[in-house]
């Protein structure tokens, strides 16, 4: 009765072949963004986010992705920026501690490239969003990498005097690398 356990264990540790929701490994994943302030590119990252990816290359249309981001875990490049960006005019983290992305469709673009579409919710505002994604095997899981442009004013990020896109650009370049366990 002990023998069948081994193949079962192997199956459990070879998830790339299985279409099952896999949790994101935070240590191997990155969520970064570049905003432009007075046309100066400024890098930022989110240190905490969770999510699941459910992807099988044989059935990409059945793929599902969900990402929840702790907005308070932002590193906007400096201590002053970190103190500012969690305030009401920006992320308003006390009222909206999390942002989320929920996929609606995955379209194959050829090879290991796909177009991921979904709904992004930040500060309680939801908008459709799509991003090209490259899927690669990574360790025991998979990595999903891509970049897209997010328009901050769609979500009310930078209200009031910050509304002016000449000082802080509306377009924010977002770069993600999500690796499953």
């Amino acid at each position, binding site marked *: 009765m002990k023998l069948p356990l081994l193949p079962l264990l192997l199956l459990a540790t070879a998830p790339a072949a299985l279409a099952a929701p896999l949790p994101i490994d935070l240590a191997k994943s990155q969520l970064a963004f570049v905003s432009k*302030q*007075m*046309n*100066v*590119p*400024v*890098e930022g990252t989110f240190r905490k986010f969770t999510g699941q990816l459910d992807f099988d290359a044989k059935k990409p249309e059945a793929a599902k992705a969900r990402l929840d981001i702790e907005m308070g875990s932002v590193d906007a*490049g*400096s*201590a*002053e*920026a970190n103190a*500012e960006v969690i305030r009401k005019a920006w992320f308003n983290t006390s009222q909206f501690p999390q942002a989320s992305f929920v996929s609606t469709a995955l379209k194959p673009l050829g090879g290991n490239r796909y177009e991921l579409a979904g709904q992004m919710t930040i500060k309680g505002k939801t908008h459709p969003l799509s991003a090209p994604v490259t899927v690669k095997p990574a360790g025991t899981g998979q990595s999903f990498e891509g970049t897209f442009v997010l328009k901050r004013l769609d979500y009310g990020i930078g209200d009031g*005097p*910050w509304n*002016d896109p000449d*000082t*802080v650009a509306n377009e924010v370049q977002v770069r993600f690398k999500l690796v499953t366990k």
Partner: protein
Amino acid sequence: MTTVRYTGVAIALHWLIALAIFANLALGFYMADLEVSPQKLRLYSYHKWLGMTMLLLVLVRIGWRLSHRPPALPDSMRPWERTMAGVTHGVLYLLTLSVPLTGWLYSSAKGFKTMYLGLLPIPDLLAKDALLAPLLRDWHENLNWIMVALVILHVGAALKHLVVDHDDVLGRMVPGLPPSRTKG
């Protein structure tokens, strides 16, 4: 007593740099204590653009100074006055270089690149360094206070030459004044 003015280029550079120093000193001390706002971001950018312009003018000026002999000081000046004038001018040259340079270093350490006039990216002098940034900020500020003291000394000395000594020192650098004034 023959007196010659500084060259037109030297006079223009002197006054342009003087203007940049006054404008950027005022702007720098004003903007530093502002709350974070779009206005603050704009002012910091203008401050950096003006500082970069000044640094360029200072480099041109030093090149010009090394290749063009300044007019002689009046014979009436005593040796200690000549020494003081030389030291003050030397320190002022060093400050006009080190003030924008420390600003540039601070900006680099802060990780906020300078985009000249919002168009031309100026390379960072060092990598982003959260520990070094506050030290460079202090140095940038301290050097500016020394600059304030030296400018006061410089202007005070120039006025002394005009009002007390009645010599032609100021006329060498001020276009409106006669280049040569007879003593007493």
